[in-house]
């Protein structure tokens, strides 16, 4: 998709325009060459020119303000270095500076964080966040990691098999996923069941595993049930509280993810703090109760 916007690939149909400036129109046979489009494209593996210095790279698209951009990206000290000796984070800064030095109309970022190791990634993500705030131009970022998208983007579009499933803010994607695909992408629990209306406010869902849960969403027939791991509370004994939904099950797995622990209880995965996990003595093979509120249970059409 980014290549099509940049003019490196030619779609079969459609229209690409920046404001009033049409770059591609299949119907009217308009096709602007990439060098005639005002884009800044940062490639996944940066595509820095290995035979040029950092300054020469940044100045490639029209060099008057190269030094200014070197300053701005904190890479002035690397001006005469060759790309081969730079670290991943440094290369990304050069690639960004190079793309932006041209003053493009739109910035295209292709998986900007995926060629970095885990440690660098976290740091660079923060840098990128600040950067994107500073520059006032439209940015289109492509990533397969929802967390990255949520951290960096104002609007997120979910593309699966070439179709746009949903276009919304990250919060809306989490709270109101359009379908099971979007829900799976955002890291939710996805259960399957048959729903019917229980009361005016509640729908009852009979899950595949036989449990009965409730949701404040309307639903009928075959549905996908979306519950986020961090909305699930874990207990070793059944106790009464406001949560309508309780699933009892065997602890299938306990996995530490940073400072949090993901526990799979029966069909559902809960996320708790490491301290809680230790306190509750959560371990494989034991039994536990996963409870979550009907208000936190989303129903989506099962595609």
């Amino acid at each position, binding site marked *: 998709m980014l*290549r099509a916007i*940049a*003019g*490196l690939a030619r779609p079969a149909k459609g229209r690409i325009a920046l404001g009033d400036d049409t770059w591609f129109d299949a119907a009217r046979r308009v096709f602007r*060459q*990439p*060098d005639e*489009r005002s*884009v*800044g*494209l940062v*490639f996944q*593996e*940066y*595509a*820095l*020119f*290995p*035979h040029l210095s950092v300054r020469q790279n940044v100045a*490639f*698209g*029209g060099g008057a303000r190269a030094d200014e951009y070197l300053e701005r990206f904190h890479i002035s000290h690397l001006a005469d270095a*060759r*790309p*081969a000796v730079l*670290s*991943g*984070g*440094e*290369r990304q800064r050069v690639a960004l500076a*190079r*793309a932006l030095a*041209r003053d493009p109309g739109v910035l295209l970022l292709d998986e900007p964080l995926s*060629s*970095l*190791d885990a*440690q*660098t990634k976290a*740091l660079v993500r923060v840098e990128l966040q600040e950067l994107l705030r500073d520059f006032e131009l439209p940015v289109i970022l492509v990533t397969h990691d929802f967390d990255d998208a949520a951290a960096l983007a104002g609007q997120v579009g979910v593309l699966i098999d070439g179709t746009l499933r949903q276009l919304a803010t990250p919060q809306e994607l989490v709270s109101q996923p359009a379908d099971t695909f979007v829900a799976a992408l955002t890291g939710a629990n996805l259960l399957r069941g048959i729903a019917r209306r229980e009361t005016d406010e509640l729908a009852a869902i009979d899950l595949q595993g036989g449990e009965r849960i409730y949701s404040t969403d309307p639903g009928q027939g075959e549905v996908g049930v979306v519950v986020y791991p961090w909305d699930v509370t874990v207990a070793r004994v059944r106790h009464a509280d406001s949560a309508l939904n309780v699933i009892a099950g065997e602890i299938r797995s306990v996995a530490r993810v940073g400072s949090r622990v993901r526990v799979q209880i029966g069909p559902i995965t809960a996320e708790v703090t490491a301290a809680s996990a230790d306190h509750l003595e959560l371990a494989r093979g034991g039994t536990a109760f996963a409870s979550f509120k009907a208000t936190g249970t989303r129903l989506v059409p099962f595609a």
Partner: protein
Amino acid sequence: MRRVALALGLFVAVAVSLGFLLLPIVALFTRQPPSELVHQLSNPVVTEALVVSVKTSAVAQALIVLLGTPTAYLIASRRFFGRSLAITLVELPLVLPPAVAGIGLLVAFGRVGVLGSTFDALGVNVAFNQAAVVLAVAFVASPLYVRQAIASFEAVDENLIAASRTLGAGPVRTFFRVVLPLCAGGLAAGGALSLARGLGEFGATIMFAGSLQGVTQTLPLAIYAQFDRNFDIAVTISALFVILTAAILLSLKVSSLWPASRQTSRSLFAHLSSS
């Protein structure tokens, strides 16, 4: 015991094969005392052959580079109808016997050849003069350059070309600012090979250009001509040839020691060393 026998056997095999390659070359220089060798270099047969060789090879090489480079780039960068045929055609002179190439050139460009009457009308005579030598040399040596050029161009990371285009450089600027610098090493290697091959061309040259001393008699042709007349001169020219070719190969080795521009695009896990 077996290991010693094996090691010995290997050593003998290597010694024999290297010796086989080295002996004829060394013998060229040891047959006469060096002073005699140097004295004979001033013989007009030698000097005129050297001039013809250098002139014609230089012109041929220039033609090969000027015409071969765009051809190679086109073949390397585009998939077009008939591409495999074009590649085969470009590589054909490599496997064609030089004598066959010579006859082919005669029937194409000679006075009684396919284009002969056209050339005649234009007042151009192509066969049996230095132009003929240039054509013969270019014909047999071009595949060595073009093949290498195609390989070099194909090895350029497509993303670099794409990056250059998105940064506002058109196809021509991209070629000169990105592709050419990155391929310089490969192209130089191809050029050196084609130059060495062209200098040594015999069959096609003698067929198409004849062996006229001072006009079309290149170094290899001179060796052949002097072979039964003045053997010592033949040896001298051969020795000179070895030095020339060695010089070309050496310059190639030296140029390949220059820092190569490594592809830096592919780095899956780059670590942060400084922020």
